[in-house]
């Protein structure tokens, strides 16, 4: 019972941290996914220079841990006179992360569209941009949805890394509270619950979508 009473007292501060976490996750998804689509197109193009550039951005984003990229943005770039606020640096690093992971999922989705769809479009005489945006992309995105939702959950949990550069997100709030009273067990349990309360329903929704899509194809 004492835990519950203490949790209730901590909750306002925790909620403001959760708000910051959700904001960072939201920004990284809203900006990262369109960028991911762009990258997936760059990687699929015939132009060698564009493809190489796209590949480099994707592979660095997926190959390097998000924390490394976060540190590079926050501690590394000031060396070139580019300094960000901690929350901006966190957003940029996670945008890169989200773009890199989502681009591969979108590329796979787009490639999964059957060849016959392209042939029908050609035979009808549809222009290339109509074929892509009205025929291929809607179908490719549809099959990418479960994967993209999975990445969104990862991004939300990944916001905890921003703690490392003192962004006042959920982990930072928890740590601050913990260091006042040294009741780390209680506070980090609460933090874990806060993450779970968002992530678990999101996972259920993802599974629901996966099942629904399996039924329709």
């Amino acid at each position, binding site marked *: 019972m004492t835990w519950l009473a203490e949790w209730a007292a901590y909750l306002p501060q925790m909620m403001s941290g959760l708000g910051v976490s959700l904001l960072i996750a939201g920004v990284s998804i809203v900006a990262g996914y369109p960028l991911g689509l762009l990258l997936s197109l760059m990687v699929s193009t015939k132009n060698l220079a564009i493809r190489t550039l796209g590949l480099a951005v994707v592979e660095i984003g997926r190959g390097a841990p998000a924390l490394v990229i976060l540190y590079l943005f926050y501690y590394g770039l000031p060396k070139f006179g580019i300094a960000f606020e901690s929350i901006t640096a966190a957003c940029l690093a996670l945008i890169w992360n989200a773009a890199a992971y989502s681009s591969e999922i979108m590329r796979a989705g787009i490639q999964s569209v059957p060849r016959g769809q392209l*042939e*029908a479009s050609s*035979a*009808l*005489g549809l222009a290339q941009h*109509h074929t892509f945006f009205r025929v291929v992309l*809607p179908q490719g995105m549809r099959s990418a949805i479960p994967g993209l939702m999975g990445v969104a959950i990862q991004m939300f949990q990944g916001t905890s890394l921003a703690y490392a550069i003192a962004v006042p997100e959920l982990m930072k709030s928890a740590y601050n509270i913990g260091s006042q009273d040294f009741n780390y067990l209680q506070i980090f349990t609460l933090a874990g619950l806060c993450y779970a309360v968002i992530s678990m329903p999101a996972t259920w929704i993802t599974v629901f979508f996966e099942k629904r899509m399996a039924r329709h194809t």
Partner: protein
Amino acid sequence: MTLAQIADGQLAPRLGIKLDNISKRYGDHVVLDDVSLHVEPGTVTALIGPSGAGKSTFLRCINLLERPDSGTIQVAQHTIQPGKDVNSRDLAALRRTVGMVFQSFNLFPHMSALKNISFPQQKVLGRSKEEADERSMQLLERVGLKDKAHQHPSRCSGGQQQRIAIARALALNPGIMLFDEPTSALDPEVGLEVLAVMRELAADGMTMIVVTHEMQFARDVSDTLVVMADCRIIEQGDPRAIMSDPQETRTRRFLRAVLER
């Protein structure tokens, strides 16, 4: 109003097509060896032959879904030499003139039946949504699927999907229709409803080239029967004459296999 009149809009000219010396190879593997075919306006040509003979490849060369290595295609006032660079205007004209129906229908699964037929009209012919929808509904009614207009393809049977696909192609006023084994993916009974639509189209005078294994359809409906084997046309002419008295042993062997089963 007949199917073809709807397909024509008002008075689209019947078109013929001339294919000369079409060759196609994948690496060392020859798939079409100097194939020529002249199709008169308003006639039905049935392409038959054993699998691997190159029938489908040849059909797909007609609207350049496959790019032949050499040869010429003459349709309307356009002469296209696919071995050389084909400019986009000629390609667009060719695709606009020639409609195609696939074995696997290839309807757009994320669009309703109506949208499947209207969307290409809007984008390719620049029709307004109202014009396009009106026309789509006429065509859907003719193929007996007016009540399916707002269903997605996954809610339709194979035969219904194929009829929607035929309507989609007709909506663009093609002068020539290509059919690539339109009933091969269907149950025999369901195939009949598709063949009925094709018979009606033929009776209305549409120029048609049909790759098929439906021998009865080939005999009864086509004006010219073309037999392909080993990447070439080995025999062509009146379907009844060829079926009752084939000149080539290869034709005889093939016909015996498909007719006497």
